[in-house]
């Protein structure tokens, strides 16, 4: 049992062209991945699909950002969920489509589309620091309190994942076996993970609230930042590229260039 899905979204500070991009451009790209995956779910299918193209595009971009392995970690972590989607798709369409090959083809398409959903924000989270994320939210005129809450939550997610892993290790050291026994026994074993995790998280939240009070959080309603995010010529070019590709794909769909299942 691991928390690889959460771990794979942890920001890694690296100096690459993707990391240096304006976070707004990366957000735009991730939104583009998500919306394209949403829109093209019914077209093509199987392994050859728009969703596959989205995942491969992310793989290439994360390769440039020297973080491709984390996308693979996400995919590995999401495998049980993807398998569940595959089974549910097969089961759901059993009465509608009599041919098994077509059924498998559709279920594969749905599974990959689901994977494209899950991974659509990998590029953004892996290459955007929580600080940049916060500045981005402020640029979008979201009040600072909410921005801070969200950024703190994002920052703490990997910490909590580490802690959860430590608790799992502690319970395994007491003879708890998470991978054995019937489903009821397995769920009961998880109680030993969630209770300490909840208690520790609440304690951490309380301590953080106290630390914020000590640092006079909220004393001033007008905030300034030392470093602001500013788009450069390169960022505009990247944004234009993202919009052009997404626009072209959307236009192609409405012009009927994408047909149904081959």
């Amino acid at each position, binding site marked *: 049992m691991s928390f690889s899905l959460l771990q794979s979204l942890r920001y890694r500070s690296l100096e690459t062209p993707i990391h240096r991009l304006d976070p707004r451009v990366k957000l735009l790209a991730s939104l583009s991945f998500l919306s394209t995956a949403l829109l093209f779910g019914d077209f093509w299918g199987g392994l050859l699909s728009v969703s596959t193209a989205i995942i491969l595009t992310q793989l290439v971009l994360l390769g440039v950002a020297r973080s491709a392995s984390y996308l693979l970690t996400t995919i590995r972590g999401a495998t049980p969920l993807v398998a569940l989607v595959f089974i549910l798709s097969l089961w759901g369409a059993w009465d509608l489509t009599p041919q098994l090959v077509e059924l498998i083809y559709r279920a594969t398409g749905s599974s990959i589309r689901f994977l494209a959903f899950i991974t659509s924000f990998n590029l953004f989270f892996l290459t955007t620091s929580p600080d940049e994320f916060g500045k981005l939210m402020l640029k979008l005129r979201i009040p600072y309190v909410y921005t801070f809450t969200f950024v703190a939550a994002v920052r703490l997610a990997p910490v909590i994942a580490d802690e959860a892993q430590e608790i799992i290790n502690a319970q*395994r*050291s*007491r003879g*708890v076996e998470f991978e054995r026994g019937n489903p009821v026994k397995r769920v009961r074993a998880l109680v030993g993970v969630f209770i*300490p995790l909840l208690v520790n998280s609440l304690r951490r939240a309380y301590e953080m609230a106290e630390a914020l009070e000590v640092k006079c959080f909220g004393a001033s309603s007008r905030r300034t930042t030392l470093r602001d995010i500013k788009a450069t010529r390169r960022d505009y070019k990247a944004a234009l590229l993202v919009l052009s590709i997404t626009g072209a794909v959307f236009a192609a769909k409405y012009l009927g260039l994408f047909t149904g299942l081959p």
Partner: protein
Amino acid sequence: MIEFEKVTYTYPSGVTALRDISLSIGGGEIVALMGENGAGKTTFLKLLNGLLKPTSGVVRVDGVDTRTTTVASLARLVGLVFQNPDSMFFCPTVLEEVSYALIQFGLSKEEGAKQAEKTLISLGLWHLRNLSPFTLSGGEKKRLAIAVVMAWSPKYVVIDEPTSGLDGRGKRTLKELLEELLRGGKCVIISSHDVEFVSEVASRVVLLRRGEVIADGPSEEILTNTELLTSASLLTPQIPALFKELRDQGFRGLNHRCIKMEDALRELSSLLGRPNLDLRSGSA
């Protein structure tokens, strides 16, 4: 006997925490793993009960290769107490917390409760039996974490940073507890930065630096070697530091391997020419 044979461990992130470690730990000793932060101490401890499997090399616990067995079965032999006791607790009461693992190991509820009662009494925690583990003090939590492990009486007791968060009284109680375990024939392995505590309890010190063993020997030998300790970012314990200072001042007869308080008092009494002098009370 725990054996490490050319053990290397590399985390999935690519960080190599331990390199080519070969050593063996037998029964009836308290072994202290020491070294700077990130030296590989916790990784070493997690290899002992199979939570981590070596990337290369072999770890054997009483002849069993940790790669070929489960953590649950190794846990019967190797009881690991985590640095943060809060990671272990989730039951509503102290008594249930201690009996939980016993039930996991196949004891009935009644047998588990009976054994837990015995353990809590022996560790002086019986009066806390109905409290929630989360409401205990730092020292009590540490003792409870040890009680949780001691309940099933593993042959090897492994404690990660036993003195972190403990006050003086807590450390004294812990020292007595470790000595009790040793008398009971257990092998105790601790990881610690606390040179004073280690000098009082450990019979052997393994010094780690950047994943490699740089020294392994009797504590009297390692903890009096200032250069070695400094190279591992550790301080020299106060007694050897004081004795070194005295020797430098011309008191040549002092034992340069002295690290324990009792031995130091004896040495100083002889130095004063009054071997029967009780330096604690000042009376002859």
